[in-house]
């Protein structure tokens, strides 16, 4: 049994220490935003945030998460009150099939927490490990810029719903 903190909640997980975090999220906790793409850490679709940093959950064994905070896309906002990053991706229609988008959003979120006003080049460099076959790359770029703007204005009015951090 291991305690795993996900989206602010503690969970008692009964799994081997070498179980990938992705399996625990999807199968035990039924949090299905993070996707299984390649299972090799090469496509980015399983990306979640661990202690503020983007991490590939398919190659992250459970034992590395002792005492750490895991955030998945579900932890950022809900359908009724989406987080700025989610709103921005919807408003820019940045998803086509959508399989890569949860991972893209999580790495973009980690970037924006660290650097609230990234340049185009910084966003491109940051999202380089993520593959998208549909080709919505330009919309994804615009969405990250939009999210940066939304977060900036959200901070001025903290009562705005979905001002997740």
């Amino acid at each position: 049994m291991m305690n795993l903190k996900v989206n602010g909640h503690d969970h008692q997980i009964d799994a081997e220490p070498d179980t990938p975090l992705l399996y625990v999220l999807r199968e035990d906790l039924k949090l299905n935003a993070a996707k299984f793409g390649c299972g090799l850490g090469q496509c980015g679709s399983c990306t979640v945030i661990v202690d503020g940093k983007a991490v590939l959950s398919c190659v992250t064994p459970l034992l590395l998460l002792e005492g750490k905070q895991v955030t998945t896309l579900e932890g950022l906002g809900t359908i009724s009150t989406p987080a700025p990053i989610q709103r921005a991706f919807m408003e820019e229609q940045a998803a086509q099939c959508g399989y890569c988008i949860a991972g893209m959003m999580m790495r973009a979120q980690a970037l924006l927490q660290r650097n609230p006003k990234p340049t185009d080049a910084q966003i491109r460099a940051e999202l380089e490990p993520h593959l998208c076959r549909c080709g919505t790359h330009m919309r994804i770029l615009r969405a990250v810029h939009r999210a940066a703007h939304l977060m900036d204005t959200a901070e001025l009015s903290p009562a705005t719903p979905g001002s997740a951090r």
Partner: protein
Amino acid sequence: MTKPRFLASIAAGLLIGGVAAAFAVVWRPAISAIEPPVPQSFDTALVKRGRDLAAIGNCNDCHTLRGGKAFAGGLPVPTPFGTIYSSNITPDPDTGIGRWSEAAFRRAMRSGIDRAGQHLYPTFPYDHFTNVTDEDDRALYAFLMTRPAVHAPARANELSFPLNQRFVVAGWKLLFLRRETYQPDSAQSAEWNRGAYLVEGLAHCGACHTPRNALGAERTSAPFSGGDVDNWHAYAINARSPSPVPWDTEALFSYLRQGWHPDHGVARGPMAEVVSNLSSVQASDVHAVAVYMTSVFGPPTPDRLRQARDLRMQIKSPQGRSSQTNTAGASIYAAACATCHDIDRPPPYGGVNLGLTTAISAPDPRNAANIVLSGIRPVEGERSPIMPGFASSMTDQQIAALLSYLRARFSNQPAWANIEKAVQDARRTETVYLQTSPGPHNAPADLMQRDKP
């Protein structure tokens, strides 16, 4: 003449003689500035040859800032003596070499003196470039003088006294610069000689792979015995090579050409730049380098061949050697590494078996730590290896546990000491590296220049 006065005049004579001798050692005349030659004045075939030679010389690696304009210099080169910034070698008349004649360029290559007569620091490897022929210097000059001129003033070096005085370099040269050029060995094949000329000269392999003495000169008594560059270990590439499987000519050729080999691993760090350049030159030159280096490695001993054979058998039917008490390392390996490194899929899409990779059998864990932290970026547009970095998901302690497990399981070498310290250092330097390099750069020059010089 009284005795004291006699002694005084001897002292004065010695002093004057000494000053004159020092002056002769240190002082070099300026070579007159020229009007920058127009690019059209250079023969296109010569420029093209110069382009390949510049790639073999890896010139762009030091003379181009990551993400910056080609050959405009400014790259900080950390040395044990301080930081030296590379110079602008574009034909800009004010900040580059636009006003350098070919003779001035050749003098810089051969004896490390700039056009104005100043001594250049030996981070510029003229101790190797003395071996470059006049014809090749002419081609390099033609190539560089036809690049786009970039206005980029030199950055001041960060050296302390007395090393910030360039005349000190004259003393260094007196001790360490051998000015003879490469002489072919008639007992060897033409290809071997071509390889030797390139390796010892323009390609300056020893600059990284040969250990340096306290004054920063290559130890000529231990050529190719392994050296240090940035926070990487440049492996021994002679009989002391730590590679579990001995290198042969074809493996070397394929590695230098494509950047990886299934029996050895992937070129990373500074070597990635080298193979990126070598992938763009004539195959015959790379093959010549491989032929010469095979003779530097020397024929493998029967013992090493037997070990390599055993290793291959063991990889085919893995068992043994895994009974360890390092459960954290084993679990991390199982979940984070084995999915790529312990499957049947061959490289580059599958990972190299860690029993074969030199990093795990190397004398220290630096390279392995670097690679676990930052992973391997795929080369744009190429079928090339890829590996995610684990800097965000593993602590130094966890990476140390993993590395110690890998060392025990995949090599027959003694355990590494101070792994955690090595991981800390790797994380610190890698952070700096990531901050100063907005993107990977692997184009040796403007590739368009290749067909249209």
